[in-house]
């Protein structure tokens, strides 16, 4: 296979998809051993494939059910990770994320005013997701989302959400063990103000 043919049939992509015939596969492999441009296509494509697998995290269907599906493929949902500050903990959390598991999603009330207090109760020993809408004016983005305890102390690193991301429900992933049992607030602040705190309990 020559270079022109490899480009015309998207051979690198076909190779990674397993769509080439045996002859095409052998011909393309022989070609990319000599062609850095085509090998770069393969390597970068393999990186994207690895990224697809690495990013897939089980998440539950709304309403308490659980199923496995990639978090970024959830319709109109952006996941943001709330991680501890230490590199060591982050490395552990990233490694754990590669393992198939179920993560409960807790939907925060859209408007905390008048809502029943302590409606959301999460098990802090295991990872969980807080799902909420940002109803602030998009012009006041970026929005800073943070979790504070009843004394006002922030836990984990605040997360920044862009206006584009805030068009969809935000999924904030909280690592297991980060929050001790107690009362917490999810605080979302934009440049022009903040929404009422969304309270939740950790047991």
């Amino acid at each position, binding site marked *: 296979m020559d270079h022109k043919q490899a480009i015309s049939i998207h051979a690198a992509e076909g190779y990674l*998809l397993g769509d080439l015939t045996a002859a095409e596969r052998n011909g393309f492999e022989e070609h990319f051993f000599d062609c850095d441009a085509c090998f770069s296509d393969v390597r970068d494509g393999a990186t994207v494939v690895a990224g697809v697998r690495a990013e897939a995290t089980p998440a539950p269907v709304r309403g308490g059910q659980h199923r496995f599906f990639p978090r970024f493929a959830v319709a109109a949902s952006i996941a943001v990770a709330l991680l501890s500050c230490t590199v060591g903990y982050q490395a552990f959390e990233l490694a754990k994320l590669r393992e198939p598991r179920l993560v409960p999603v807790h939907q925060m009330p859209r408007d905390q005013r008048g809502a029943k207090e302590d409606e959301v109760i999460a098990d802090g020993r295991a990872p969980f997701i807080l799902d909420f809408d940002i109803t602030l004016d998009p012009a006041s983005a970026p929005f800073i989302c943070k979790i504070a305890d009843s004394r006002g102390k922030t836990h984990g690193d605040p997360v920044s959400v862009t206006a584009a991301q805030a068009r969809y429900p935000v999924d904030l992933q909280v690592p297991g063990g980060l929050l001790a049992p107690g009362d917490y607030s999810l605080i979302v602040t934009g440049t022009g103000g903040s929404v009422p705190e969304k309270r939740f309990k950790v047991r």
Partner: protein
Amino acid sequence: MYRYPFDAEYLRRLREGDPVTVEHFVTYFTEKLTIKLWKRGFSRAAMDDIVQETFKRVLEKLRSPNGIQSPESFGAFVFGVCNNYVFEQYREMARQDQLDDDAFDLPSADPGIEQMLLLGERAAKVRRTLTLMKPKEREILVAIFMEQQGKDEVCARHGVTRTYLRVVLHRAIARFRYFYTNGKG
């Protein structure tokens, strides 16, 4: 097309064990051999064995009386040596009833290889790429590479052709490169 300029001088230095040339040879071909073998579904241990044996056979040929006749095709020669050894392994696996052609379709899920591919900034750029993809195209890649659904089934469900799958992956690669090389995202 960019072809590394292997020539007689390069092969002479390699044959004589010049450290810089040897390091280049090992680095240059280890990546290519690893991707090729990852695609074929070999375990890490088997990959390491094949890479080492390939290098050993290439250097033996280099130092033989006939040497390598076409320096400019050195890459294809290394590929051929690897392929021959891989086929020897296939024949051995077939004898042990371990060979499954279907296993050599999509790249195997190898955490070690995937970690290598996602080193440093690359992981963040891939994440950015996937976040900004059209939902339909992202779903297609997830269905094929993560959930390992049949490609015909995925095409039928999304109303696309098999050729379109290559276009989807091509777009993802282009977007990833844009973020990675421009330092954006």
